[in-house]
């Protein structure tokens, strides 16, 4: 009898542990995106006539609606809540860009673009643009165009909120750091931080229990992933600036250079007038430090 009960408790705990790995939306502390104030602008740019004839901007402004691809499962960047509307920094950026076209937040159609579908969605014209924790790299530039970057993500450190000893990668010497076996962050730690004792697990969520139990001192991978954990767990904190560079860009059709350059202009406006900082602080900024806006890259094809 008592043995059977212990078994049930074990099973239930295992189920909870598994569920905990992907606990999501419900307790996301990020506030809802502010739809008003960004929906329209009064600087005249929202007037379709202001855009060059035949441009993507003119077409979208004319239609008064836009389709934007984003992640639906990335806390703080693009996460769909119970109401079906995604929230996060990527969503805010997408909303601000749409606002510059004179498109209200409620006229934006959000489409889920997981990592493996982003290029295809752009090439097929399923979406007008993609804001989805989308790292700019040369391979992807063969297929799509990138405006931005609008944010530089990178490898960072997650540790217990109570641990004051670790404030950045230089404090990791001699520490036990959990990461995923065979991942790029693991490679980076092995190559550039040889003093670190790397503890590889199968997934990042499996690192959390050992971290809480003091079996490892920190977890290290992309700050965006770590921020998701920090947002869901009050006892965990992301520490220090990212120590690798993953520039996040806005994906558009490869040959639509005009649209890409226009988005770059919009981003520079957002950086300059503080709307970018405001968007950050109301979303990912709740758990990540507020960075300086990056410089946009107006690369030639």
């Amino acid at each position, binding site marked *: 009898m008592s043995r059977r009960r212990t078994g049930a408790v074990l099973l239930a705990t295992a189920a909870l542990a598994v569920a905990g790995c992907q606990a999501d939306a419900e307790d996301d502390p990020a506030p809802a995106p502010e739809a008003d104030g960004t929906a329209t602008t009064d600087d005249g740019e929202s007037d379709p006539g202001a855009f060059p004839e035949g441009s993507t901007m003119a077409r979208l402004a004319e239609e008064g609606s836009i389709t934007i691809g984003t992640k639906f499962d990335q806390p703080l960047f693009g996460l769909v809540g119970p109401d079906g509307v995604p929230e996060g920094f990527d969503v805010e950026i997408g909303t601000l860009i749409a606002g510059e076209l004179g498109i209200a937040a409620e006229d934006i159609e959000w489409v889920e673009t997981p990592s493996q579908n982003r290029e295809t969605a752009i090439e097929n014209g399923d979406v007008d643009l993609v804001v989805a924790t989308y790292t700019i790299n040369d391979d992807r530039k063969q297929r799509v165009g990138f405006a931005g970057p609008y944010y530089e993500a990178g490898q960072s450190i997650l540790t217990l909120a109570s641990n004051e000893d670790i404030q950045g990668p230089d404090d990791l010497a001699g520490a036990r750091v959990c990461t995923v*076996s*065979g991942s790029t962050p693991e*490679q980076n730690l092995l190559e550039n931080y040889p003093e670190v004792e790397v503890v590889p697990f199968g997934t990042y969520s499996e690192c959390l229990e050992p971290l809480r139990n003091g079996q490892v001192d920190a977890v290290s991978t992309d700050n965006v992933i770590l921020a998701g954990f920090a947002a869901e767990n009050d006892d965990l904190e992301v520490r220090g600036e990212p120590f690798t560079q993953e520039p996040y860009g806005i994906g558009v059709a490869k040959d639509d250079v005009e649209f890409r350059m226009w988005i770059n202009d919009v981003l520079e406006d957002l950086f300059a007038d503080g709307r970018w900082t405001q968007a950050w602080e109301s979303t990912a900024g709740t758990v990540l430090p507020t960075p300086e806006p990056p410089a946009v890259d107006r690369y030639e094809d």
Partner: protein
Amino acid sequence: MDLIVDNASTYLDGFAVTARLTAYSAVAALAVGLVMAALRIAPLRSLRVVAAAYVEVLRNTPLTLVFFFMVLVAPQFGILPPLGFWTAVACLALYTSAFVAEAVRSGINGVGVGQAEAARSIGLTFGQVLREVVLPQAVRSTVPPLINVLIALTKNTSVAAGFAVVELVGTGRRLSTANAGDPWVLVGVAVCYLVITIPMGLLATSLERRVAFAR
């Protein structure tokens, strides 16, 4: 191909960890498995039940789950096994001991019941019956299946790669990332496993021939 040669020392490190995992777990699994097999034919019903439960639970649980319980669930009950090598040995030994117990039990069952009855009738105790009469005969037919169990154990050590042990597979994953996913990396890993398992298979075959006896 060059890649395997260039990284020979890295492979060797991973190989050494896999070999040690296999060796320690094998010794522990053989010891525990033998005890469990003896308990399964013990004259006391309660001992038989305990041994049967142990064997059936571990034999029918995926090894990854055994690791999962030990590494990620046990700490929630206040049991904090050290991360890494020795916990992996414990998981592998527990899991494998169930298969050892079954191999030994089938060997024991293969010894004619008359042997045990005759031994009892001349006044030997249960322990003596096992030690002097049944086990010496059972071991002969048990050795080949036991080696199969150990070959499986060798390959199963790869599960530890997901639980803080950098053995051959963990080493392979690192090399693969460092070399842009070059498929030769995994060929090298496979060869390292074969270096352990093929000689074991050959040993099994030759032992089988040597210990074969006419019934």
